[in-house]
C-alpha cells in the first residue's frame, strides 16, 4: 500500500460528568449496555410471570400467601383469579416481545458492536441514539404502570382520568387481559369488556406507541450508520454477518413499527375519543349493547397488527442468526459456509416477512384464495431458512470445534431454530392451522423459534462479547452449567406443548379442570411446570456470572477468542472513540480462518493483503484481495 495507512490521530475526549458519561450518554457503547440492562430487568418480570402462570395451571386454587400481599385484588386471599392469569399472559407476552426480544438483540448488541464492526467511531446520530433508549425506557415504565393502573388504589388514582373508574373494579386483575395482540372489539371498549380493560389498556397502548417511536429512532440510526460510516475497505460484502443481520432488522423495524403505531393511534381514538374504527355496531358485551359505535371493522386491526407482528418476530430472531453465524465460524475456526448465500438468505427472510401476515388470520374468515397465497408465501420462507441452516451445518462440518460457552449457545440456537421452525411448516398450511390455531401447538412453535432461539442467540452473544464489553471473561464452568440445564430445560418445557396442542388444549385458559378430554394431560402439565421452575432458577446462575465476572472475572486480552473482526483489534473495553482516533483500514473478509499458508489460523480484517501468501500458492485472486481498487 503506497498510501498512508492511517490518518492523523484526532481523538474525541470522553465526557467528564457522571450523568453525561453513564446516564444521558451519547456513546453508542454505553447506550448498548443500557439497552442490555433494560432487557435484563424486563426479562425478570416476564420470567416470573411465566412461572406464576405455570403454577396456576398446575395447582389451580392454591393459596400463595405472598401473592395476597403483592396483588390483593389480583389474587384475593392468595388464590390467583382467572383475570389475574389472563393479565399475566398479556404482560408476559408484551414485556418479552417488546422489551426483551426487541431491545437486547438490536438496541443492545447492535448498538454496541455495529459501529465498531464497521470501523466507525460512533453512530451517525448520537443524540437520536440516546433519545431512542430513553424513549424506550419511558415506554417500559408506562407498561409497568399498566399492570397496576387497576387493582392498585394508589397508581389507579394517578390515572383515574384515563379510563372509567380506573381502580374501582377490584375484581382481581393486575393489568390488561386481552393478550399481547390486543384484538378489538374487546380491547377497544374499555371497562365494559372486563376487568383490567379500562385504564390499563390505555396505558398499554400508550406504552407500545412510545416503544414504536423509540425503535424507529434506533432503526433510522442503524441504517444511516451502516450506509454512511463504514471505514476504508469495508465494502458491503466484507461486513460481518452480524452487521447484515442488524441492518436487515433495522429495515424491518423501520417499515413495520409505523404500521403498529398507526393501528395503536386508531385503537386509542376508539377508546378515548368515541370513534368507530374497530368497533362494529350492535355489539352485545357483558349483558348490554354497546352504544354510540357503528360500522367499525375488528379485522382491520388484525391486518394492521400482524403486518407489524410478523416482521416483529424476525426483528427478534435475525440478530440471533447474525450472532450465531459469527460465533459458529469463529469457534469452528472455519470461514462461514457460503457467505453470500447467508447474506441473501437473511435479506430474503426479512423481505418475505412482510408478505405473510395473513397466516396469523387463517381462521378469521378470509377468502380461501388469499389464504392459499399467504400459505405459499409462508412456506417459501422455509427456503432461505434452510439455506441458513445448511450453511451453519456446513460451517461445522469437519471443523475442529472449540466448545466454549458462546459456541454451545450458538449450536443451541441452530438446534432450536430447526426444532421450532419445522412446526412453522405445519402451521403455515391452512388446513392444519384450522385445527392447531389457538392451541398449545402454536405456543410451542413460537416459543421455540422466536422466543427461546432468540434468547439463545443473545446468550451466545453475551458470553462471546462480554470480554470485549467489560474486559473480563465470564466464568466458563458456570456458563456451561447454565447452557446444559437451559438447553435441556427449554426442550422439556416446549416439546410437551406440541402434544398438548395435538390433543386440543387451548391457549390462554386459566385452568383446565373442567375439561374431561384434557384430564390425561395433567402429568404432562406438571412435568412442564417443574421443568419451567428449574430452568427459570438456573438463570440466576447466568445473572450471578454476569455481574460477578464484571468485577472478578479473569482478565481478557484484546482478542481472547482469536477472532478476526474489527472489535478485536482494539482494547477491551474499547476507548470512548473506539479506534482512538485512528481510521482502521480493512483488507479482507470477516471470516478468514485457517487460511492455507498463513502464519496463524486466523487473519484479522485489518491485516494488509497477504500478497506473498497468495503468490506462494499461485493464486493471486484469493482472500478477497480485491479491496485495493483504490
Amino acid at each position, binding site marked *: 500500500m503506497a*498510501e*498512508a495507512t492511517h*490518518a492523523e490521530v484526532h481523538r474525541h475526549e470522553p465526557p467528564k460528568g457522571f450523568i453525561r458519561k453513564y446516564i444521558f450518554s451519547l456513546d453508542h457503547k454505553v447506550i448498548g449496555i443500557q439497552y442490555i440492562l433494560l432487557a435484563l430487568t424486563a426479562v425478570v418480570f416476564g420470567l416470573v410471570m411465566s412461572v406464576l402462570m405455570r403454577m396456576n395451571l398446575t395447582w389451580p386454587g392454591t393459596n400463595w400467601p405472598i401473592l395476597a400481599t403483592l396483588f390483593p385484588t389480583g389474587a384475593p386471599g392468595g388464590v390467583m383469579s382467572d383475570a389475574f392469569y389472563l393479565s399475566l399472559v398479556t404482560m408476559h407476552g408484551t414485556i418479552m416481545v417488546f422489551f426483551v426480544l426487541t431491545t437486547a438483540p438490536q438496541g443492545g448488541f447492535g448498538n454496541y458492536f455495529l459501529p465498531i464492526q464497521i470501523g466507525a*467511531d460512533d453512530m*451517525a*446520530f448520537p443524540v437520536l441514539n440516546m433519545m431512542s433508549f430513553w424513549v424506550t425506557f419511558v415506554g417500559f415504565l408506562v407498561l409497568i404502570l399498566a399492570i397496576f393502573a387497576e387493582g392498585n388504589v394508589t397508581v389507579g388514582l394517578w390515572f383515574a382520568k384515563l379510563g372509567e373508574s380506573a381502580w374501582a373494579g377490584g375484581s382481581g386483575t393486575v393489568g390488561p387481559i386481552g393478550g399481547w395482540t390486543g384484538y378489538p372489539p374487546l380491547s377497544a371498549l374499555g371497562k365494559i369488556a372486563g376487568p383490567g380493560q379500562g385504564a390499563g389498556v390505555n396505558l398499554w397502548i400508550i406504552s407500545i406507541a412510545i416503544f414504536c417511536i423509540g425503535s424507529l429512532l434506533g432503526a*433510522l440510526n442503524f*441504517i*444511516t450508520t451502516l*450506509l*454512511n*460510516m463504514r471505514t*476504508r*475497505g*469495508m*465494502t*458491503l*460484502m*466484507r461486513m460481518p454477518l452480524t452487521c447484515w443481520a442488524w441492518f436487515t432488522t433495522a429495515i424491518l423495524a*423501520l*417499515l413495520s413499527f*409505523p*404500521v403498529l403505531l*398507526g*393501528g395503536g393511534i*386508531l385503537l386509542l381514538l376508539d377508546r378515548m*375519543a*368515541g*370513534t*368507530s*374504527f374497530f368497533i362494529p*355496531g350492535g355489539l352485545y358485551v357483558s349483558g348490554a349493547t354497546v352504544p354510540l359505535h357503528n*360500522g*367499525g*371493522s375488528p379485522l*382491520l386491526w388484525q391486518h394492521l397488527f400482524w403486518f407489524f407482528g410478523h416482521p416483529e418476530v424476525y426483528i427478534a430472531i435475525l440478530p440471533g442468526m447474525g450472532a450465531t453465524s459469527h460465533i459458529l465460524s469463529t469457534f469452528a475456526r472455519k*470461514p*462461514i459456509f*457460503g457467505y*453470500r*448465500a*447467508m447474506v441473501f438468505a437473511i435479506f430474503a427472510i426479512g423481505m418475505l416477512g412482510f408478505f405473510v401476515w395473513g397466516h396469523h388470520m387463517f381462521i378469521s374468515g378470509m377468502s380461501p384464495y388469499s389464504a392459499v397465497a399467504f400459505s405459499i408465501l409462508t412456506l417459501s420462507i422455509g427456503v432461505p431458512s434452510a439455506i441458513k441452516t445448511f450453511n451453519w451445518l456446513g460451517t461445522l462440518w469437519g471443523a475442529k470445534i472449540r466448545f466454549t460457552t458462546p459456541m454451545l449457545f450458538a449450536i443451541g440456537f441452530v438446534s432450536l431454530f430447526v426444532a421450532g421452525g419445522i412446526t412453522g411448516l405445519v402451521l403455515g398450511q391452512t388446513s392444519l392451522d384450522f385445527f392447531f390455531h389457538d392451541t398449545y401447538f402454536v405456543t410451542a412453535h413460537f416459543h421455540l423459534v422466536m422466543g427461546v432461539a432468540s434468547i439463545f442467540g443473545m446468550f451466545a452473544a453475551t458470553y462471546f462479547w462480554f470480554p470485549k464489553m467489560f474486559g473480563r471473561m465470564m466464568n466458563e464452568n458456570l456458563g456451561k452449567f447454565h447452557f446444559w440445564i437451559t438447553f435441556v430445560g427449554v426442550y422439556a418445557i416446549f416439546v410437551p406443548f406440541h402434544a398438548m396442542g395435538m390433543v386440543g388444549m387451548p391457549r390462554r385458559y386459566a385452568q383446565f379442570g373442567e375439561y374431561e378430554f384434557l384430564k390425561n394431560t395433567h402429568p404432562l402439565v406438571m412435568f412442564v411446570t417443574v421443568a419451567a421452575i428449574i430452568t427459570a432458577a438456573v438463570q440466576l446462575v447466568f445473572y450471578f456470572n454476569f455481574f460477578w465476572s464484571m468485577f472478578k472475572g479473569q482478565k481478557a486480552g484484546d482478542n481472547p477468542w482469536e477472532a478476526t473482526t474489527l472489535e478485536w483489534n482494539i482494547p477491551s473495553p474499547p476507548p470512548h472513540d473506539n479506534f482512538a482516533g485512528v*481510521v482502521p483500514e480493512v483488507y*479482507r*473478509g470477516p*471470516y*478468514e480462518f485457517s*487460511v*492455507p499458508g498463513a502464519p496463524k489460523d486466523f487473519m484479522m480484517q485489518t491485516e494488509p493483503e497477504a500478497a506473498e501468501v*497468495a503468490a506462494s*500458492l499461485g*493464486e493471486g*485472486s*484469493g*482472500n*478477497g*484481495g*480485491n479491496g485495493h*481498487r*483504490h
Partner: protein
Amino acid sequence: MAATVTGTEQVIDTTVGGGLRSRGGNGFPKNGGGRHDEGGDSFRFSADRYRIGVWVAIGSILMLFVALASSYIVRSASGNDWQPIAMPKVLWLSTALILISSITMEISRRSLKHQRDAGYGRWLLITTALGLGFLASQVFAWRQLARQGAYLASNPYNSFFYLFTAAHGLHLCGGILALSYLLLRTTRKRRTVEGELRRAGAADAATIYWHFMDGLWVALFFLLFFWK
C-alpha cells in the same frame, strides 16, 4: 485453496469498478466504504448522512400514512355510515400555500448551493412563514367544520379527516422546527469546510423533507376529497 477463504472472493469483479462497489460500496455514489481520497475527520464526517437519514425517515413516515390510508379505504367499505363531508374551501388555500412553499424552499437551497447566503436566509424565512400559514389554514378548516357540527367522532369519514390532517400537521411542525434551526444557524459563521458541509447537508435534508410533506399533503388531499 486460498480462493475459498470467504464468500468475498465471489464478488471479485473482472472489470475494475463494476457493480455496487464502484459506487462506494453501498449503492450511494460517493460515500461509505472504500472511499480513499480523504483522511482524518473529513473522512469520518460525511454530510451525506443527513440526506440518507432523511430518506430513511421518509420511508418510515410513508409507512405510517400507508397504514392509515389502507385503514381509510377498508373502513370506507366496511360500514353503511360513511358520509364524506363537503370540502372546506380554505383547504385550497392550504394546498396553494404548501405548493408555493416547496418552490421557495428549493430556491433557498439553490441559493446556498451558489453561496448566496443572504438569499438562503431570506427564502428560508419565507418558507417558514408559508409553512405556518399552511398550519393556520388547516386549523381554520378544523374550526369551520367544528362550527358545522362535524366532530372527530361524528362520522368515520370525519375521524379520518381529522386524523390525517393532524398527523400531517404534526410532521409538518417537525419540518418547521428544522427550518427554524437552520434559520438560527444562518447567523453563525462557519470557518471550517466541515461546518459548511454540515450546513449544506442539513439544508438538503430539510428540503427533501419539506418536498415530501408537500407531496404527502397533495396525496392526502386527493385521497380525502377526490378518491371515490
